[in-house]
């Protein structure tokens, strides 16, 4: 009996084409994701970089007695009053209260320009500057009385209703304080929990419940942690609303599962022979963990903690719920004071309709992204440097 194996060339061609198509789908998918990342970073950078430049005006400030009494507009020559920032002018009387010896003197200095002048000089659409002031601004710019300079104040000043003197300084301090609280709460509790589950706990239903619970917690939407913070920390325990403490505790609970999960992975990667060796020479359970397992797992624990904290740093939703989005121009001086954080500051600015705030928002986004990049880079570097193959 003879069988023939018939190859249908048409069908074969079709199959080969399908093979090629399938391969192409994969490449297209990766290319799409890459293109998005490229577009995203290009867009954010091109929007935000102009905000790091600010427009300044040179004025001769006249510290007369009338200015010290509160009529701050008199400090600036009449033709400059529409050029210089009103926010700056308002600070003069207070400055004179602190330095009474300045009264009666004059000072030449560069001050932030009013935001419409700022936008006009930068050549942005929708600057809203009136025609007659446009000509004055052009003239002053030609005479180098108006200049474009790097916006150092953006990093030192707090929020303001006037975009030319608004900055991320206060919110950076707020973020730092909140992160500190989150760190000192979440890292020790998380590491201890992981050590207990991985090294000590018996395999019974209690342990399994805790494990399932932690995995679940890691997948719960962050906004629900905000509801917890509002209902339990603020309304029940009476922690002040909008305070760094309320925000830090809420974020600590949110970060906890991430730290626990990564610490457990790090502990699991330490080979058992090390534990057995230590037990063999008579170490107790705590000694085995403290002297041998934890030091070996430390790089992994640090990496996981940094990634968890970076995530908490970029988190906004639960902080909005605990009230950290109000207009808060000052950096906090205690953990019970109302404060704001960088992502919340970005959100507040993004909902403002003045165009100059859009630029500030993008600049804030760049600052936030740089910090995230730095933290994640640190984590990757740490993992790379200390990675150990057993």
């Amino acid at each position, binding site marked *: 009996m003879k069988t023939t194996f018939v190859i249908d060339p048409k069908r074969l061609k079709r199959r080969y084409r399908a093979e090629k198509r399938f391969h192409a*789908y994969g490449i297209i998918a990766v290319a799409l*994701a890459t293109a998005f990342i490229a577009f995203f970073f290009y867009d954010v950078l091109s929007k935000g970089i102009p905000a790091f430049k600010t427009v300044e005006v040179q004025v001769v400030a006249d510290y007369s007695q009338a200015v010290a009494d509160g009529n701050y507009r008199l400090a600036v020559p009449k033709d400059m009053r529409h050029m210089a920032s009103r926010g700056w002018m308002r600070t003069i009387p207070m400055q004179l209260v602190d330095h009474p010896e300045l009264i009666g003197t004059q000072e030449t200095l560069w001050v932030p320009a009013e935001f419409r002048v700022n936008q006009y000089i930068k050549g942005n659409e929708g600057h809203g500057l009136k025609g007659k002031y446009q000509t004055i601004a052009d003239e002053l710019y030609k005479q180098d009385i108006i200049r474009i300079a790097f916006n150092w104040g953006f990093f030192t000043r707090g929020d303001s209703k006037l975009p030319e003197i608004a900055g991320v300084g206060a919110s950076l301090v707020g973020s730092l304080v909140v992160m500190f609280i989150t760190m000192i709460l979440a890292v020790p509790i998380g590491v201890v929990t992981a050590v207990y589950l991985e090294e000590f706990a018996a395999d019974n239903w209690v342990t399994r419940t805790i494990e399932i619970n932690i995995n679940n917690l890691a997948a719960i*939407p962050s906004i*629900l942690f*905000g509801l917890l913070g509002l209902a339990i920390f603020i309304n029940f325990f009476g922690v002040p609303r909008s305070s760094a403490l309320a925000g830090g505790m809420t974020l600590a609970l949110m970060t906890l599962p991430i730290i626990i999960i990564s610490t457990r992975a790090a502990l699991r990667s330490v080979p058992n022979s090390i534990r057995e060796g230590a037990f063999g020479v008579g170490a107790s359970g705590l000694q085995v963990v403290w002297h041998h397992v934890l030091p070996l797992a430390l790089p992994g624990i640090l990496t996981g903690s940094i990634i968890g904290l970076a995530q908490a740093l970029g988190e906004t939703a639960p902080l909005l719920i605990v009230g950290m989005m109000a207009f808060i121009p000052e950096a906090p001086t205690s953990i019970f004071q109302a404060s704001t954080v960088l992502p919340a500051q970005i959100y507040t600015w993004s909902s403002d309709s003045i165009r100059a705030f859009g630029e500030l928002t993008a600049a804030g986004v760049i600052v936030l992204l740089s910090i995230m990049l730095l933290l*994640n880079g640190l984590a990757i570097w740490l993992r790379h440097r200390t990675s150990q193959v057993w």
Partner: protein
Amino acid sequence: MSIGDVFLWLLGGLLPLACIAFFFTRNRMQHREVAGLGVFSRPGYYGWLSVIYMAAPAVAVAMLFSMLHMLHLYDAPFSMLTAASLAAAALGLVASLRLINPDNNARLLVEKWARGLMIVAAGISVLTTIGILLSVLFESIRFFNSVPLWEFITGTKWEADTAFLAGAGRGDEGGAKPHFGAVPIFAGTFMITGIAMLVAIPVGLFSAIYLSEYAKPRVRAAVKPMLEVLAGIPTVVYGFFAAITISPLVVKGAEMFGLEADYTNALAPGLVMGVMIIPFISSLSEDVIHAVPQAMRDGSLAMGVGKAETIRHVVLPAAMPGIIAATLLAVSRAIGETMIVVMAAGLRPNLTANPLEGVTTVTVKIVESLTGDQQFDSLLTLSAFALGLVLLFITLVLNIISALVVYRFKKQYALT
């Protein structure tokens, strides 16, 4: 004396006391050990035991006062709390110096205390879950006392504006009764989630297939971290991007087709959310595709089946449970995502099937009703907790299903 001062005083008092307790007791035992007199445990353990004896009464006293304060039984002034706590610590220190002797099995005692502390730490995560559950449950029950559950689930009209008046103490002026029908809100949530999944599933899945089956190691090493960058970008940044860049693009694009789109359309946040979710799907799917045994691929290739055909007919069906689990997790992530929709989606509940119109979502409504100057008891505030309860329920169910699917998948291939 403020709470801050209490913390400062307690820390400033307890830390030096702890140092005294530790070093004093340890050195005492060290001297004995050096002198050749018997010591049962290592000297350090006696030091720690002394710290525990010192700290335990202080913490107990502080807890007692806080408990009394919380139950409104007795309101101790802060200064009294601090003084009592520090006094308890001092007493404990003196007692520890007298009680601890070299015959104690200090190691065993310290390990027992350490174990107890670990269990307390592990309990915090359980307490967190209970806390979330209780906080949304209690307020939701109060909400459903005034708004029937049936109206909430099936009502198609969400008009909470009059609840705002009631919240401001002017309930009689508004006249009209507020409506809390959540159907439009859920519809908006599912529409944006659906758009996100339409982006994330194809791109994420094909990226995973490409990376695990086709890509050379060098390409893989470059592309994988890049995809993970997408997961690390803060959501407020995505929200800004969706609102400022993508929304106007969608409006312009719709104009080209002669359609009219809102600036708060559902498409922009949906697309951006989809991109945010790509790495969740791709990395989880890649893991399960990677876990499919090589023997199955080899068997299929040996029969003369092409590579793509092997992936389609052998690898993907085998990995399907894991892929489904990844998708469910991604859906739960999308439903709970807040900042993108808060910044780019609308505020007005809108029951529509047109993605170019503005819709609102559960998370937007929660944020909106909790960030105003509302009394905590107002119906609008309570409605946020009711929506939170629904959100919690949906995500829990999705997470549990996906965990079960993964569990069965792992069992099937005997993975640990």
